[in-house]
Structures are given as C-alpha cells and as structure tokens.
C-alpha cells in the first residue's frame, strides 16, 4: 500500500539524521533517492485522490445543506446560551424571516411571553437528561401573527462539555382546528382545553381477566366536561361515576372499548341517561387501550329536531286530512289548464260525473262536459277568469257519463306564474240539483202562497160584500119597514095616549135612525156597494165626501179617469188603502188637509195620499202601534196584489203614501 509505504519511509526518514545520511554509501543514497521518488509519485497520486474526495465531500455537504434548508420541517440549532447557531429556511419562514437575519439572535425572543414558562421548563429538562422533549407553545412571526408550534427538542453534549440544543419546529395552528389535530395531539390537547365549550375526557379501558372490557378509568377531563356532567370524575372509573352505566340503553363501555382497541374513530349521537341529555360524541384512540372522547351537548338541537319532527308529522297528518277533505268534501274540486283540460279533480266530483279519474285528468276538457245551453256562458266566464283571476257563482249544467244533466254552481280563482301568465284555475263545484229543486219548490210554494193570499183577499172581499149586501139589502129595509110600521101605529093611536107615548116613539125612531146610520157606516167600511156599482173613483169620491162631512177635515180627490174599472180585488185594495190612510190621518196625523190623487189614465196605476199632518219618523214606526199596523196591512195588501208600497214621512213634514200597481 503506497500510503503505508510512504509512512514507513517518512517515519524512517524522519529519524534519519544528516550525519547518518553522510555515512550512507552512494548505493544506499541512490536507493534512498529512488525510494523518495516513488514516494513522491505516490504522494501525488494520493493528493489527486484527496482532491476527488474533497469535491465529493463538498457536493455531499451542499446537498445536506439543501436538504436541511428545504426540509418540510423547521430545524434550528441553539447554543447553550440560547443564541441561534443554525436555522433552516422552513423554520425561518415559519417566523416570516430569512435564516441570515436570525443567526446569533436569541431563540426565545420569538416565543410568546405567556408561553415562555413552558419553553424554559423543557429547556431545563433537556439540560438535565438526554430525553427529547416535545411540547407546544405559541410563537410570534415578524409581522406579529401568533401561531402554534410543536417543538421537539434534543440536547447535543459536545466532548468539550458544551451543549447545543436542536429543535424541530412544526406549525400546529391548522391542526388545532381540525378533528385530526385532536387525534395527533391526543391527551396533550386536554391541557389546552380550558376555553373550549365541548367536554373532553381522556380515559383508559379496564378489562377483566378474560380480556373483556368491563369499565374505563378517567385520566383527565376538561372543565367543560365537569360543567356538562355536573360531576368531576377525578380518577374514578365510569361505573363509580355512573353507577347504572351498564343498564343504559346504549353500551357506552363497549363503544369506547372498540375505539381503544382498534384505533378506529367513532362518531355518534346518543342520549345519556345519567343526566338525561343528548350528546354528539367523537371518540378516538389516544394510545393503545386509551381513548379520548369529545362530548357536545345537542339536547336543544334534539328538542328542536323532535319538535320539527312532530311538526312534520302533524303537517303530514294535516296534509292527509286536507287530502281527505279535498277528495270527499260535499263539493267538487278541480283544476284546469288554459285550454280547459283537467289537471286535478276530486273524488266527489268524479262521483257526480260518473267517471274515473284517468278518464278525466289530462284527457278531457271541462267544456266537453258542459251542456250546449251553458257552454257559451262558461266560455265567456273562463275568459274573464283568466283575465281578472276570479269568477264566482257561475251557473252551468254538467253532463254525466250516462248522459243526464245536472245543474252546478262554479266558483274559480286563477293561479298565475311569476310573469303573470295563466297557469291554471282552481274551482269549486256545487251540485245544485237539490237546491234547484228546493228553489223550484220554493217558487211553487211562494206562488201557491201568493195565490192563497189572493184567494184569501178575494174571499174576504166576497164575505165583506155578502155581509154588506145582507145588511144593506135586508137589515136596512127591515129597519125602514119597522119605522114605517111604527108611524102607522102612531097614527092609529088615541089622542089621550100620545104625549108620553109619543116621546117613547121618538126614542124608538131615534134608535132606528142611529142603527141605520151605523149599518151604513159598517157597510161602507166593509165594502161600499157603490164600489161594485160605480167603481173605484166614485167610491173614493163618495167616501171622501162622507169623511169630510164626518170629520170636517179638508180632503181633495183628483182622478183623471173616473169611469175606468178594474178587478174587484184591485178596486177593493186601492179603496181600502184610501180608507186606511184617511183613518190614520184622523187618528194620528192631526192633519187639516189631505190630497188624494189617482193616476189611472195609464198603467201602472198610482195612488198618492198626501197629508199636512205632524208626520213621523219612519224608522220609529214600530213605536206607533196602530199607525204601524195600519201601514203594515196596507203594505202587505199592496204586495199581495203584486204592487209596490212607498211611504215618506218626517216629523213636522206630513206623510205621503204612494202605491204603484201594474
């Protein structure tokens, strides 16, 4: 080996002194020279080799530096006194600086003041032992931003007894905000959990001799957990803290055992019977047979969900009810598109029509089911409906499957799209068959009633007429005959009887005269014979004369057509209204002048009775019993005859009664 040889030579030569050299023979000197030359060559060769090695070393070094700087983790070497000796780009980047700026700066100046204690504590630990220290603290970037860093520190003790600290820096800010972070940091995270609202528990599983999980032990919990459960478990086991945990509907121990054993994460929502609350739970394995569980109280949310569910249930029940009501309502419902095609129709309507749903919906138009007589009405109404959005009480006739027709009443409203275009119309359908029938019956009944009323009036008139003529044609002449007979008897009497007897006779004749007068008045009130003989105008005229004579009230009667005759009922009605009006005037109005006008030259006939009396408040008519009754009977009588009755009166302004008869 040339190196060894050279060494040996050098060693030997080194011990070779000049005197010794001088003692060497020339041969020996030649040999030594040769040897030296060989060495020289060898040296040169070695030198070249070294140069190559140096280059390789330089390359390796720069490669190392590159790796050091580009590493995904931050590296930093700190002197015993805390000055930065070396720092890679990643680490300086974390702090927002260049490595050159940080060399010989104090490492601790980048640590948040509050966390200095942590760093100091671990640094002391590093100095005392060879164990690496891993801890998390907050550092400040150049721009002032604070971020979480995990430090893994190791101490290098040099031969000289000096110590250097090497740190690996890892940014954990992001991790701290993720579930993943929890997995990674495990129970360490618990230490930092003072301010978090969810409960955290670090626990260890307990197994029996067969390896079956039977319980777990609390190692640490955060304040939120204590607050949440209302209990500090300390280092107790689950069964000590929650004595009935095995009886709970959910196998909590089993679930956690699974996590602790397999390392699989589980996430579930459960009801915790201990405090009757709901929790959203995430459980992770922190290390083998250990787990961390995170509790979030979701009782409120669950209550909301429960309520929402109940609402949903209720809504769906309502929807069912509405559907049932829709289908079986006592009226028909349908929707049609703009052409009249059915979009929906309820069962009731189908039942009325005698069709199946599939024979109607999307197949048939409403127009197809309308009778010819009412189709045009519908078309007109449908246009209005599309335009104005609503149509009420359209009467049409629908044709059943069997061809029979029935009357219906339709009320519709339109549904428009956002742009105001007609989408469809929804309609309600009423079967009018019964109503029509009832209406017809009602009309029939009303007709019958009117006829009965007319008949009643007629027969009443007939009765009055009969009674009147009976009194007039028989009683009056009888009385006249009695009076004549009395006269005859008186003329036959002897003179000596007469004085006292004559007075008696005059009393009797006075009675007869009074009776005759009252009979005449009764006859006139019931039905004046003149009404039949000479008609309405003559009867009123005569009655007016008698009334004037009897009461002294001024009455004028104007009539355009004296000789016109009407049906006995109508003549009687108008005469009676005059009579009633005059009687009212006498009894209540305190009138001094009355004007009666009968406009009978053209139809309708108008009878107006006007007085200058005290009048009355027409609204308080009910207060005046008699007058009210008289007016009421006038109105009733007029309406029975198919006429109209008008009354105008005001306090102090007289009264006007107007009757119009066709």
């Amino acid at each position: 080996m040339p190196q060894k040889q050279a060494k040996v030579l050098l060693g030997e030569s080194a011990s070779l002194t000049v005197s010794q050299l001088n003692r060497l023979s020339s041969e020996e000197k030649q040999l030594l020279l040769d040897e030296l030359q060989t060495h020289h060559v060898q040296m040169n060769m070695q030198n070249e080799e070294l140069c190559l090695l140096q280059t390789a070393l330089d390359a390796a070094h720069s490669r190392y530096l590159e790796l050091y700087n580009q590493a995904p983790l931050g590296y930093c070497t700190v002197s015993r006194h805390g000055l930065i000796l070396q720092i890679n780009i990643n680490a300086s980047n974390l702090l927002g600086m260049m490595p050159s700026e940080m060399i010989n700066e104090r490492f601790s100046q980048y640590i948040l003041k509050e966390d200095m204690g942590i760093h100091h504590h671990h640094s002391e630990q590093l100095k005392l032992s060879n164990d690496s220290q891993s801890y998390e603290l907050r550092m400040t970037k150049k721009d002032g931003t604070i971020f979480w860093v995990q430090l893994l520190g190791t101490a290098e003790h040099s031969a000289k007894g000096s110590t250097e600290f090497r740190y690996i820096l890892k940014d954990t800010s992001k991790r701290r905000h993720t579930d993943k972070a929890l997995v990674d940091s495990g129970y360490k995270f618990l230490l930092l959990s003072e301010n978090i609202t969810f409960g955290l528990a670090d626990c260890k599983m307990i197994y029996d001799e067969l390896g079956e999980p039977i319980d777990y032990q609390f190692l640490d919990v955060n304040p939120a957990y204590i607050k949440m459960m209302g209990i500090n478990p300390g280092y107790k086991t689950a069964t000590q803290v929650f004595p009935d945990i095995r009886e709970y509907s959910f196998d909590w121990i089993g679930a956690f055992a699974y996590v602790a054993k397999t390392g699989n994460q589980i996430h579930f929502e459960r009801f915790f019977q201990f405090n009757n609350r709901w929790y959203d739970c995430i459980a992770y394995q922190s290390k083998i047979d250990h787990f961390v569980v995170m509790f979030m109280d979701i009782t409120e949310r669950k209550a909301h969900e429960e309520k929402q569910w109940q609402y949903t249930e209720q809504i769906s029940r309502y929807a069912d009810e509405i559907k049932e009501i829709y289908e079986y309502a006592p009226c028909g419902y349908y929707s049609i598109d703009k052409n009249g095609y059915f979009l929906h129709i309820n069962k009731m309507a189908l039942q009325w029509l005698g069709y199946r749903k599939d024979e109607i919906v999307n197949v048939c138009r409403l127009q197809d089911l309308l009778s010819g007589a009412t189709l045009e009405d519908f078309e007109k109404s449908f246009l209005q409906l599309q335009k104005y959005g609503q149509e009420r009480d359209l009467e049409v006739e629908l044709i059943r499957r069997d061809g029979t027709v029935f009357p219906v009443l339709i009320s519709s409203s339109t549904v428009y799209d956002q742009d105001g275009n007609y989408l469809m119309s929804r309609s309600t359908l009423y079967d009018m068959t019964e109503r029509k029938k009832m209406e017809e019956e009602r009309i029939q009944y009303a007709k019958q009633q009117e006829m009965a009323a007319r008949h009643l009036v007629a027969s009443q008139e007939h009765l009055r007429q009969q009674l009147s003529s009976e009194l007039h044609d028989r009683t009056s002449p009888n009385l006249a005959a009695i009076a004549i007979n009395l006269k005859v008897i008186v003329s036959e009497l002897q003179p000596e009887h007469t004085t006292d007897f004559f007075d008696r006779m005059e009393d009797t004749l006075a009675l007869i005269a009074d009776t005759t007068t009252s009979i005449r008045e009764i006859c006139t009130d019931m039905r004046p014979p003149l009404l039949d003989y000479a008609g309405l105008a003559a009867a009123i005229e005569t009655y007016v004369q008698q009334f004037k004579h009897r009461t002294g009230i001024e009455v004028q009667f104007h009539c355009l057509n004296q000789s016109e005759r009407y049906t006995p009922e109508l003549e009687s009605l108008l005469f009676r209204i005059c009579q009633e009006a005059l009687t009212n005037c006498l009894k209540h109005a305190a009138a001094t002048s009355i004007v009666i006008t009968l406009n009978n030259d053209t139809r309708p006939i108008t009878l107006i009775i006007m007085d200058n009396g005290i009048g009355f408040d027409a609204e308080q008519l009910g207060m005046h019993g008699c007058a009210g009754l008289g007016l009421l009977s006038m109105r009733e009588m007029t309406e029975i005859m198919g006429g109209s009755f008008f009354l105008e009166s005001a306090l102090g302004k007289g009264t006007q009664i107007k009757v119009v008869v066709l």
Partner: protein
Amino acid sequence: MQNIRILLVDDHQMFRNALRSLLENTVNIEVVGETGDACEIVDLVRKTSADIVCMDIGMSGMNGIEATRKLIGACPTVKVIALSSYSEHKYVQDMMAAGASAYITKVEAADELLRAITAVRQNRKYLCPDVSDALIGAITQRHQNDTSSLTSRERQVLGLVADGNTSLVIADRLNIALSTVEVHRRNILRKLNLHNASELTRYVMSNDILTC
C-alpha cells in the same frame, strides 16, 4: 078626485108590506100592485095603469136604475119615485138621469114618501133631506146647522146638554136608558153637522139654546 095609482117594486116583501099599510092609510092613494122582480115592470105598469112607481134600486136581477130607464122609455108618462137604501150621490145622479122624478131613502120613507108623491103629482122633482143635504154639502162644503130637522125629543136632549147636564143625568131626567141618550146625541151631531162633544158645546153656547 081620482085616486093616485101606485105600483111598488121592491124585492123586500116586508118593506113592501110596510109601504102598503102606510099608503093605504092615506086618502086618494091606491096601491094597484107590487112586485119583487123589476123585469116585469113594463107589463105590470101597462096592466095596472099605474101613475107612480115606487122603485127600489138594489134588487137582485135587474136593478132599479136599469128598470127605470126601460120603463120611462116604454111609458114616458109614468112617474118613478126611487126608494133606496143608498143615499150616495152617484146613485141619485144615475137614477135621476134614468128618468126618476124623486129620490128618497128608505129610512126616511115614513116621513118623505107622501111628500114625494105630492111633488111628482105636481110634475116637480123631489129629493129627501138625507140626499139633498149630501148634495148641498158637496157644493157648499159647510152647510148650515139649524135645529129644524131635530125631533122634539132631540131638542129636549140638546136643551139638557146646554144646561150642562151629563148623559147620566139626562137619562135619569127623561127616564130613558143611558145608551138611548147617547143615540140621541149622535143623531143630533149628525143632523147639525157637528163632529164631537166640544163642537157641540161650542154650538150650544153660540146659539143660546134654551131648555124646552
């Protein structure tokens, strides 16, 4: 002097009888016939040579106005006296237009029939007070209210009223029923064209009525 021959036309038998007895008590008057059916009137007048026909108006069958028109048409010399229950203007007008010479109401027949007969015999027209009052009233509105039409009994009652007696006292004084006094009062009001008790009192005071 030749008897006046009278024919009675009225469908009321009892009234005809009363008239007959009234007329037969009178000298120079002879009732030559009577009938209840106006249709046979022309024949009957011709057969009986009646001078005067007492004609009712309201009869079943043909009425008195129609019968009068027919009769006067057939026998213009015969006189018709209308004897009716009606006093209304229209009947009077129609009857007179049909050719009747006199019109009296049945209730006044006892007093008025003989006057009417006398009048028509002298070719005058005659209307009884009931009818003439009504006609005059229609023209003059308010006709006089004198006491001439009152009977002596009525004047008696009026005098007692004027003295301030109540109906009860009057009834007692005249020895008649209270209701009869009321009847007299009503008749007085009617005859004097008065309408109520206060009008009567005023009338009594202004006319100085004295007790009879």
